[in-house]
């Protein structure tokens, strides 16, 4: 049962990264791909109806994590206190950037919020990547299951690491490249004209950079946490995740070269899923490894809630997720196709 909830929480986080990932990416390329007010409105209209719903996956995943693994939630949220609070502030600034930009019809007002939207999206991508890096590298857990990390120390990996060291900065950059590319594919899919051309160019560069970033992060991860390979040795079927990653990278090049924007977007979705599932597969049954003393590590076994709670949870979770899938299908269908500026209110 705990394993099942591990998969469900990982699934929700992965859906979050895929969905909010493209609107984060749209934010990162916002000022690069769109130069004029009309072009920037195209980008905002492309994500406008969906970004909030996408972000709910983070809240829902956070809730599910709290529910299924209370100790992990308590330990990691207090241990990652400072970066989490900064993520919250960035999410706030970003939401303001998207939604307030078109309320006042003045160029200064608009450029202020364009910058805010873009900068917050960029920093969020790096923070998310660094967060994954921190989990993989491990944190200085004490015997009670708590820890606290400063933001940075010496940038080397010690037994008392900071949030940022060379490895987590690297994973942050990988996430930045990933989401930039992902968002560029999405914007290329949803727009035409100059925005489409610029987004394609960014996506093209990003797709190539992604290959280098993936290779680098793989080597670094195996250096920082060689145990990541244990599960792959014991259960060779896990090789399916790296295969998905490689195949997605190849498909991205193929579709990018043929200007098939939506297929390229699906490839980057596959890439993200492959990477995240691969990491989750390597970590299992660990949720948060301890840096120094492995007996302090948080696993699905020592953090899970009671069996009754998890069983009841499964029942309502399935109902909730089916409903959510229904709303999202309806929502994305209602706003399918390329965006047009003339129609409707907002942005």
């Amino acid at each position, binding site marked *: 049962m705990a394993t099942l909830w591990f998969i469900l929480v990982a699934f929700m986080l992965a859906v979050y990264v895929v969905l909010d990932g493209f609107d984060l990416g749209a934010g990162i390329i916002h000022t690069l791909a769109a130069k004029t007010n009309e072009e920037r409105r195209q980008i905002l209209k492309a994500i406008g109806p969906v970004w909030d719903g996408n972000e*709910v996956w983070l809240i829902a995943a956070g*809730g599910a994590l709290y*529910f299924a693994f209370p100790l992990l939630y308590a330990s990691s949220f207090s241990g990652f*206190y400072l970066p989490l609070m900064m993520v919250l502030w960035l999410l706030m600034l970003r939401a303001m950037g998207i939604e307030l930009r078109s309320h006042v019809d003045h160029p200064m007002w608009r450029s202020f919020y364009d910058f805010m939207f873009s900068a917050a999206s960029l920093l969020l991508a790096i923070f998310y990547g660094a967060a994954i890096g921190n989990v993989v590298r491990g944190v200085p857990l004490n015997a009670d299951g708590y820890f606290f990390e400063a933001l940075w120390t010496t940038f080397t990996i010690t037994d008392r690491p900071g949030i940022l060291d060379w490895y987590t900065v690297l994973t942050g950059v990988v996430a930045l490249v990933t989401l930039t590319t992902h968002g560029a594919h999405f914007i290329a899919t949803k727009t035409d004209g100059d925005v489409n051309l610029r987004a394609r160019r960014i996506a093209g560069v990003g797709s190539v950079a992604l290959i280098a970033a993936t290779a680098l992060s793989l080597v670094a991860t195996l250096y920082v946490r060689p145990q990541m390979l244990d599960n792959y040795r014991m259960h060779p079927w896990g090789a399916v995740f790296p295969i998905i990653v490689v195949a997605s990278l190849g498909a991205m090049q193929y579709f990018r070269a043929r200007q098939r924007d939506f297929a390229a977007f699906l490839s980057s979705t596959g890439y993200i899923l492959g990477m995240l599932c691969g990491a989750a597969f390597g970590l299992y049954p660990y949720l948060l490894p301890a840096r120094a003393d492995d007996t302090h590590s948080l696993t699905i076994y020592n953090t899970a809630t*009671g069996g009754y*709670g998890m069983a009841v949870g499964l029942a309502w979770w399935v109902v909730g997720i089916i409903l959510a899938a229904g*709303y999202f299908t309806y929502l994305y269908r209602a706003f399918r196709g390329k965006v047009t500026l003339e129609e409707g209110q907002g942005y």
Partner: protein
Amino acid sequence: MDSALIVDRLHFAFTITFHYLFPQLTMGLAPLIVIFKTLALWKKEERYNKAARFWAKIFGINFLFGVITGIPMEFQFGTNWAQFARYSGGVIATTLAMEGGFAFFLESSFLGLFLLGERRLGPKWHWFAAFMVFAGSWLSGYFIVATDAWMQHPVGYAIKEDGAAYLTSFWSLLFNPWVGWQYLHNMLGAVLTGAFVMSAVGAFYVLARKQEEFGRLFIRTGVTAGLIAAAAQAFPVGDAHTKMVADYQPATFAAMEGHYKTETGAPIVLVGQPDIANQTLDNPIVIPRMLSFLTHRRWDAEVKGLNDFPRDQWPDNLPLLYYSYHIMVGLGTMFIAITAVAAFLLWRRKLFNAHWLLWILMLSFPFPYIANTAGWITAEVGRQPWVAFGLIRTEHGFSPTVSAGNAMFTLIGFMGMYLVLGVLFLFLIAREIDHGPKILESQEALAMASNHPVEQPALKGE
């Protein structure tokens, strides 16, 4: 202020108080918008659609600020209250996670459709989107109140050997005896905010002789909804909720009422300043025997005073608890008076000429916000010294590894951020009210024109 406990408490108190300024209006406006959308479908009059569109704009801005300030709430259980999260996660994370799974997905998906999709959806589906936004926001309120209800009155759990609480009965958590009245009380409070804001905007339009047709519609809707909510809030809802506090949290009840010594035929305090050291009230105005009657329905019943409870069970901020409760009740009484007089004049068709009352309606919109805030302060300060009543004390709930300095850092950060947010919010809302429902017409005309292929080049050239 060098204790992390104090900073963590201020942290939560500040962020939740600011946050709840926004959802109370969205939850209050949502049913009123559904009423406008229904009238538009039923009477086939475009002005109801325009009214709905105007309030949807206000709703949208409010919703955005509610989301922005709401994200930190769920996270703070872990960041600042890790020991409590660990203790109670097996129980209350169920309702918190269900809020995400059921209410937020619903709300956020349909809000996009409601605010941006009127043209694509058509009138019937657009009504449906409005209704789903209403359902989502009210469902969200239910899960949050159910979470708080468990902290007020824990049910459906067992403490296991690791010392943490685990869920044993899903249905008793969801239908906690505490949750029914508290939810109704809270939602009526939200409707009062929505109704008073609506009638205040309406009164402004009528007094300023600006878009008066809409002004009168808003006053009629606001006053009617306000009267119903204000009356139901006093009886049966407020009365039943207070009795529940008296039954389950008797020390809190005594402290709320400023009732220190056990007596038979106890009076109810209307006004007075508590003197905690001497356990008396200065300058009291009381109604004799009323507290006994309201609590036990007998004029000579005994009501236990705070002195008869052990000191370590007392709420730790007695004056704040006493004042917040009395402010809430006093304002609630005032809401009944204002809406009853306004509804009477509305019925006699004299309201729109009674400028003195329109001024009152226009200026009263802050009071429901104050009453809602005071009500929640009563509930949460009254729950002290417990974080989950009778189970775990607040002093045992905060995060052990987050220092007071780090918590203070983010508290100050939130204060700065929320100051900016507050100013921006007021600016944006003032603009929308200044534009009013009429301006939307001209925007629409523009949108229609630009949809028309022949005129498009001309518009682009501008």
